[in-house]
């Protein structure tokens, strides 16, 4: 034991062995999985997903009578991915968000801490067990994801990437739960804080984005393309198009002018959306042509648009459907710009992994013994 130096509480805090991990994970699975009706919950989960998937198929089959079945397949796949992500994020903390403080109040945490298990083994073992449970839910969801996939329209690469990212996102959720359960002494507090954290990343940040949008909106002089009648003239003083015709007999055309207009600089705050798990999943698996009408593709497109910010030329003609041909060039340019952007998902994934790592590290630190401080109102034994 000569490798031990005198920095309390021991340099072994962060050491991890396979045996130690397995011991804790097996204990955790036996202890918690046995005490809950997981089978029942898994069956309910399967029934829920089955019902939703069937409904989606029925609905889209009726709606998309004329549409291609491939398109419908991609749409359903995207929706089910999001369904699994949101419901999975709700279920995953059930196991991890009470794993440390639950053990503490049951008086069994100290029993582990006095053995030769390191704090890292205890924390990661618990995390591993929680993740395995979350993966069981993902496994049950697999047939339904596969159903959307088999409808066509989803490249196999997209299927695999999405599945992998789903598993990673659930791991992050488990880690957040573990961290809170080590920080707070009451299991209800840790469960609530875990859900708040997850909701903040998943819903709160997008809401924050829209709330901040007015702050990055300015009035600037820009080139604007408007639909006006052929005879209209630009009045720079009044900042309007003047037309002396009473009833627009002459055809409408798209004209440019240099005028004051409001511009939302979304490129300054787009990063608020980058860490959102839904955005990460969408951005990581583009359709081969970078386009698509499914929810994953449209979220990817929209976030990239926000990242580019308002175009140099504000094109109000684009809103006029019948003028599409005239604007095709503009649109294509914009799409090329979107495609040229670096992927945002690596940042988003990094943010999530950082979040998970931080919470795990906090849990490990909190599991160190001997403890100098105890959470308020707790006893060690």
């Amino acid at each position, binding site marked *: *034991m000569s490798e*031990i130096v*005198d*920095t*309390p*509480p*021991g340099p*072994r805090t962060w050491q991890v062995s396979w*045996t*130690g991990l397995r*011991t*804790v994970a*097996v*204990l955790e699975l*036996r*202890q918690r999985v*046995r*005490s809950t009706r997981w089978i029942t919950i898994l069956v309910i989960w399967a029934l829920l997903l089955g019902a939703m998937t069937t409904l989606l198929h029925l609905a889209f089959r009726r709606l998309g009578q004329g549409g291609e079945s491939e398109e419908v397949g991609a749409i359903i796949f995207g929706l089910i991915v999001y369904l699994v992500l949101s419901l999975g994020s709700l279920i995953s903390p059930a196991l991890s968000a009470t794993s440390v403080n639950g053990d503490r109040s*049951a*008086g*069994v945490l*100290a*029993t*582990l*801490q*006095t*053995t*030769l*298990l390191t704090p890292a083994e205890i924390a990661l073992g618990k995390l591993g067990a929680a993740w395995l449970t979350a993966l069981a839910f993902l496994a049950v969801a697999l047939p339904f994801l596969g159903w959307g996939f088999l409808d066509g329209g989803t490249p196999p690469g997209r299927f695999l990437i999405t599945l992998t990212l789903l598993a990673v996102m659930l791991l992050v959720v488990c880690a957040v739960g573990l961290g809170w359960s080590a920080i707070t002494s009451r299991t209800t507090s840790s469960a609530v804080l875990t859900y708040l954290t997850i909701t903040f990343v998943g819903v709160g940040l997008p809401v924050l984005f829209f709330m901040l949008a007015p702050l990055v909106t300015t009035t600037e002089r820009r080139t604007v393309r408007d639909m006006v009648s052929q005879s209209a003239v630009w009045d720079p003083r009044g900042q309007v198009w003047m037309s002396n015709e009473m009833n627009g007999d002459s055809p409408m055309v798209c004209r440019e002018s240099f005028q004051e207009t409001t511009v939302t600089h979304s490129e300054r705050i787009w990063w608020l959306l980058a860490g959102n798990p839904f955005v990460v999943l969408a951005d990581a698996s583009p359709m081969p042509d970078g386009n698509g009408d499914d929810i994953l593709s449209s979220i990817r497109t929209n976030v990239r648009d926000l990242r580019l910010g308002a175009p140099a030329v504000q094109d109000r003609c684009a809103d006029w459907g019948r003028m599409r041909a005239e604007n095709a060039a503009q649109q294509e340019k914009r799409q090329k710009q979107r495609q040229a952007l670096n992927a945002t998902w690596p940042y988003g994934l990094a943010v999530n992994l950082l979040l998970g790592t931080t919470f795990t590290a906090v849990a490990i630190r909190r599991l160190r*013994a*001997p*403890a*100098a401080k*105890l959470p308020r109102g707790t*006893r*060690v*034994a």
Partner: protein
Amino acid sequence: MDYALIESNDLDAGTGVVARGVRRTFGDVVAVDSMDLDVPPGRVTALVGPNGSGKTTLLLVLATLLAPDAGTVTVAGADPRTDPWEVRRRTGWMPDAFGTWETLTCREVLETVAAAYRLPRAGIRARVDELLELVHLADLADRPTQVLSRGQKQRLGLARALVHSPAVLLLDEPASGLDPRSRIELRGIVRDLATAGAAVLVSSHVLAELDTLADRAVFVSGGCTVSVRDLDVASAGPRTWTVRALDAGALERALDALGRVHGDPGVDGAVELELTGDDDAASLLSALVHDDVPVVSLRPSGGVLEQAYLSLTKERQ
């Protein structure tokens, strides 16, 4: 009973437990103010004190769970603060409030703890069987611990503390909830461990249960060590005895004739008096028998510890 498994262990308790000036507070609650404690190897030391006197807190410090605010501690030759791993490897701790993984069976609990102490996988099964046998839980081995009675849980807790053959044993109120038979068995296990060289510390506020168990007693009160007694000395030293005869009158007359100072007979005709030690008691008994007093019993009043405790509180008054 055969405690071969205990004796076969290679126990090296080092200097046992040595604690000096230990202090531990929780916010403004001073749980342990200043405690000194020695738990020498080969002996059973009792930690005696009223509720809330800081016994559990001191044991948590020794068991590497709480850092002391002040003082020095050595357990099995290592400092729990700087080298908790070495302390844990050699120390078994049985907590006061016994929590258990409720859905695990007794066997699974012990197997988990054995794995957590990194015992070689090959030996775990046999070791667990031995321990279950030792604490008489073999027939409940595959039942979830949820269904165990309080006493059975205590016995499982003892087995859990013994899994890795510790050289230092810290037992926090081990006898609470045990039936008389289990208590006697606990005594057997603990005494055998001490004989094999282990340093054993047993905390309790019930004096009677420590009487036949401990060699030494450390008295604590209000977070401080008040006194240390060697119980062999206590039983040899002056103390109160109770003598009872069929004829209380004859007994009183005989005692007066022998010049012994004694109290008034109680309802059962028993008389209390001070004797200087075991030799004194033996000579008194033979004198009474010689005088044809029909003596039924002559025994120390109360337990040895109780007397030590009472004499202690008397000293403090």
